[in-house]
């Protein structure tokens, strides 16, 4: 909330002076309004920061009030010109906001006010010519400030014509911190039906990649399928990430390992109906003739109650794509193991509902050192054929999204390389290595323990088994494999 808005000028004779303020008396008491509340801030103390020394002109400047309740945001502007007394026109349009509110959205406003009025002053001396008062005994600029303040406080935006040529267009935008980097081995999962909201005015790259964001394809594959360069794809996905419309997950392989996080407690306690949500999302309901890959969860997911199931509903939108992408994945073979199996899973589905207890049992039996494959085997041996009832990829992704599970990544470390790094004989090369001809040489730079197999798989376009084969050419005993 803007508590006060003011226009201050530096007058050669009188010094810093508040010319207009809204509400009246918010910065300095006025003769017209002696009965009002005392000013929000002590003008004598803060005037030094409203019109500061020359070195600080033309900068966004803030200061807190001594009582710690308010912040004063301003942008002192100086327009040098011979037409002015002492060759300079100095003014500041500022805001007073509570000290504990997010000031970032207001910074734009202050800058915009400074720019607009500086330009108007330059064009026709709008500010310097202002001497008259209107019929109410108020300066037009004071009413202008009042409208600005009211509109911004009430609607978060304003569009106010100042004169025939100039309009004040301002809006409060929330600020989001820059999104984390997107890597080639991430798998973006849409949180909404991006395909439905995209229109021809969108960025061309986004339009190209959106059809391929299905919660299964990794970034590198999306780039390949959409025929877009990888850096551009990553950049476009970062935009989606910025607006919180996608999530980034890891690639799903049946050979990889997942383990519970403390958040799994919420699942067992069925907090916020988490188990029911999970059931709607992961259970294989019958096998439709449409295709073996269709895990048929669209209706289940979509039918969820509105609360807290955004991602699930977003995901169900892509359910129909799964079949296609699975076959593509198999055709292109690098990561064939991934979701392909799910396709076969629906085959014998009988539509039996999986009980909550079974889901809890499934979720809690993930463990460090147990791959998904072994996990399936474990349950099959115990008499529960997981693949018949559950879309395993969805179960795992549900766990990862909700913070119940984490992926245990696989790393390879070369002791020789480590000691080279430790002694400084070799520095960590940049990601874009200069393409060594020897393949094992290419792999060396991944062996410092900071690059997971997922990264090697996507960057070198090799399968897990390929990599392990290549690594055999290293000195025996030098390499160790970590699971972390």
């Amino acid at each position: 909330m803007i508590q006060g808005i003011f226009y201050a000028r530096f007058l050669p004779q009188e010094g810093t002076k508040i010319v207009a303020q809204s509400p009246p008396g918010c910065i300095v008491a006025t003769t017209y309004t002696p009965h009002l509340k005392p000013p929000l801030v002590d003008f004598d103390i803060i005037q030094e920061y409203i019109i500061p020394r020359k070195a600080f002109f033309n900068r966004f400047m803030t200061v807190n009030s001594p009582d710690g309740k308010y912040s004063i945001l301003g942008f002192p502007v100086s327009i040098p010109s011979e037409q002015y007394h002492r060759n300079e026109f100095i003014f500041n349009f500022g805001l007073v906001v509570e000290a504990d509110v997010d000031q970032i959205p207001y910074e734009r406003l202050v800058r915009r006010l400074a720019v607009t009025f500086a330009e108007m002053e330059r064009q026709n001396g709008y500010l310097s010519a202002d001497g008259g008062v209107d019929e109410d005994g108020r300066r037009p600029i004071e009413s202008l400030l009042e409208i600005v303040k009211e509109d911004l406080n009430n609607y978060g935006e304003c569009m106010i014509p100042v004169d025939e040529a100039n309009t004040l267009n301002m809006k409060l935008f929330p600020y989001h911190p820059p999104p984390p980097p997107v890597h080639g081995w991430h798998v973006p999962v849409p949180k909404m039906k991006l395909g439905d909201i995209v229109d021809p005015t969108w960025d061309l790259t986004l339009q190209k990649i959106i059809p391929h964001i299905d919660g299964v394809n990794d970034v590198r594959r999306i780039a390949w399928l959409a025929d877009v360069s990888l850096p551009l794809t990553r950049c476009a996905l970062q935009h989606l990430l910025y607006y919180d419309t996608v999530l980034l997950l890891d690639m799903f392989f049946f050979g990889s390992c997942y383990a519970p996080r403390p958040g799994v407690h919420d699942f067992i306690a069925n907090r916020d109906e988490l188990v029911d949500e999970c059931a709607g999302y992961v259970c294989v309901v019958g096998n439709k003739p449409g295709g073996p890959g269709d895990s048929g969860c669209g209706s289940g997911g979509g039918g969820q109650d509105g609360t807290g199931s955004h991602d699930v509903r977003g995901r169900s939108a892509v359910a129909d794509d799964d079949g296609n992408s699975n076959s593509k994945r198999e055709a292109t073979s690098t990561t064939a193991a991934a979701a392909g199996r799910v396709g076969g899973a629906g085959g014998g589905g009988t539509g039996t509902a999986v009980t909550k207890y079974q889901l809890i049992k499934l979720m809690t039996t993930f463990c460090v050192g147990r791959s998904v494959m072994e996990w399936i085997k474990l349950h099959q041996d115990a008499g529960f054929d997981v693949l018949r009832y559950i879309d395993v990829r969805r179960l795992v992704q549900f766990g990862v999204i909700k913070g119940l599970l984490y992926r245990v990544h696989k790393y390879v470390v070369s002791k020789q390389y480590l000691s080279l790094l430790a002694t400084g004989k070799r520095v960590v090369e940049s990601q874009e290595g200069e393409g060594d001809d020897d393949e094992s040489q290419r792999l060396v730079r991944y062996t410092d323990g900071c690059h997971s197999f997922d990264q090697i798989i996507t960057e070198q376009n090799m399968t897990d088994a390929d990599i392990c084969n290549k690594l055999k050419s290293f000195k025996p005993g030098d390499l160790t494999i970590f699971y972390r």
Partner: protein
Amino acid sequence: MGSPILPNASNFLGVALVVNRSRDGPRFVFHYPPQILPCNKNASANGPSDGLEDDDDVLLNQTARAPFEAANESLPNSVDLQRWNHDDHLETDSGSQIVPWEHVAGYPTKDLESLLTPARAYHKKLFQVSLDQLCFVSYPIYVPENGIWRKKQPKFQPPKSPETGDLSTKDGQTYISASDVSQIETRDMADDAIPGNPAEEADEKKSGMTMFNLVFILNPKKHEVKELADTLYFHIIKKINKPFRYSQQKSDFVWKESKRILTLKDKNREAKTKMSTLWKEILETSSLAACMQDVYEAVSHNKIAALQLETPEGTITHSVQIPMPFYLTDLPPDDEAGSRGLWITTANYFVDEDSLHDPAFLDKNFALLLMSDEKKIIAELQADPDETTAAMVEFVRLSKPTMSFHQIGQGTALSPAQVREYAQHFIFWRRAIATPPLHARDVYILSPNSDFTLLPQASRAWSRAFPVAPALPDFLAELSVAPRPYKWFCPSKNHRPTYLQMLAWLMRGGWVTQLCTFAYVVVWPEILYEVEYSLEAEELRAAAAAADAPRNGNGEGSEDDAADSDESLEEPVSTMASPSPGEGTQQFDPMTSSNPSLGSPFPAFDPTAAHSPLSASEPAKSLSLSLSLPSPAQGPISPSSASPSASTPTTRTPPTTNERVAEKARLERIADKESRLAAERAAAFARKPVPRQTDHPSLNSAAHLAHLSPYVIVDARRASAAGKDSLYLSAIGRRLRDPAVRAAWPVFWKHFNGRSALERVALLQDVKRKEAWALLGGMSEFLVCVRHW
């Protein structure tokens, strides 16, 4: 969510000291590091993603700033300026000199000094001013209103002045070693003995400094501003001003040092000394400057800043830090480098409210793991001796990561209270962390939060510390493959102690974490059915009894009976499951047992006792059966809903005879209906199969259990207090065949809440590990387990 925003070299640019003098105005005394470069607005520092660099700025840059800066002719031509190394002095075309230390963060110190000397209203308050991205945060200190820094102390004051009281160990947060304090105080006394020279005071008033302001210069990212400023302000800025103010009050320290620095600067301005040379000299001669350096270096690396002010009246030492958690409870997001390498555990987090205030609980659960070498810590302690040093050294010697505080406190050397206090002291000052005692039988895995960028250095350090042990990568890899008890990795029993030291080393570096097992009680359908069945039987009997009750004039359940309700409920559960089907139906048929005193073989089943649990305990009402059918027990007897006429007779006019007859008929009709319903229910109940106990309830797949699915009790301890869950728990208890296990069940079930690790049950219950695991093994059929850190 997100990890706290902490100062680092990129968002914390430097510290500066500005003073104001009554006659000569403000002066910019000193800043560190020597070169604080302007954060150029359009450079990559802000990044294109900042979003605020829009056309507005382009406009302003073109039109407003350019002419303004051109007007400022004190700058030399731009080529020179760009090549300037900020160390040498430059000369402008107009002949004026540019002094390297007179430009800080892109602004002339002449301007900054006036900006950073705010009005007295900011005395001991947060003062925060920002210029574009740059942010100055401080806590200005003004001279008292009378213009004299030195505090007038009444003669013969007890040695502890309020200031020193503030500074000496309070929660171990601020700390002046006792010897320093006494040193200062003795001087104080001496000073006070000689009455202050009034002329001197007047002089000080005239020339003296009216305020000083230690300013922290920040360059935070947009979203960091508030949090970073607040963190620094509360943990560092406010606290660091205490010793400054104290030394100024005692011996005019800040002003005298400032004068010295300013003189040096003025002299070297003429001599055109290189800034690096001058700064070296200043740091050597002024402990105030050196202290500012320490603060910057420590705070920007998020370490503990230990200040030393060499005042003429003795050394003042003080330590400040931004408290850091030494553990995490869950994995941080991928992109957060800040919390990588921290120990990841839920050992502290899941401690619930009650036990948090129970020192015994913490004592048993935790051991002290020193963060650096024992010898080094002892040396540190002895370097700065006071009356607690000996005890602390003893504590360091005794503390082993394998021994809980409880065990250390049992010894003769230290009391449990001392152990607790010192442990807290060491933990606060980051010399140690509290971990669950390490044990070779526990399972340790490679921590998912370990920081692998440190691996090259760490493996060198490891091979130096444990030359004969396997290489660090190999050892970690082994731990990471599959979770196994730690002793598996140890070749023989003789190697145990070394291997435990290795484990401590790994824990310290956050390389490993304990994999714990958390359990919940699962109630199998067989048990569910059994409890359900007995509850229904109970209810029917109560209904039957109640139907008789009005006639006996014994309708109301007394309060005392409610207390017995639990036992009276439990009893039938245990006895009822055994009788043969024929007997069972006979017994519980309300028709045959309409006269309770005859029909019921159990004395506890007199009508009042049987009735009370149903009306008194909520869970019984919420039974699915009693909800689906209108409960007969509720209608006629329950005093509140039974007969409106009975409850509110006084407000009504006396009913006429006709009305009375009609009312009676109506009641009879209701009663008839009730008894008919009751009979129907009883018949339905009689058709149900009688629960049968099998050896393994988890495997019971009888047809009548098919509609039930196992039920998980989330928090057994809370559940045991009341409700149906408590019935399940006691029903399970009766199923445990081993008497030892059965005895342990009600003791152990409080740990089955998914929060307290089974690994720590032995410690908490003071039983042997093996025994605890054997007992837990006996209960395993009724537990569902999950393993995480």
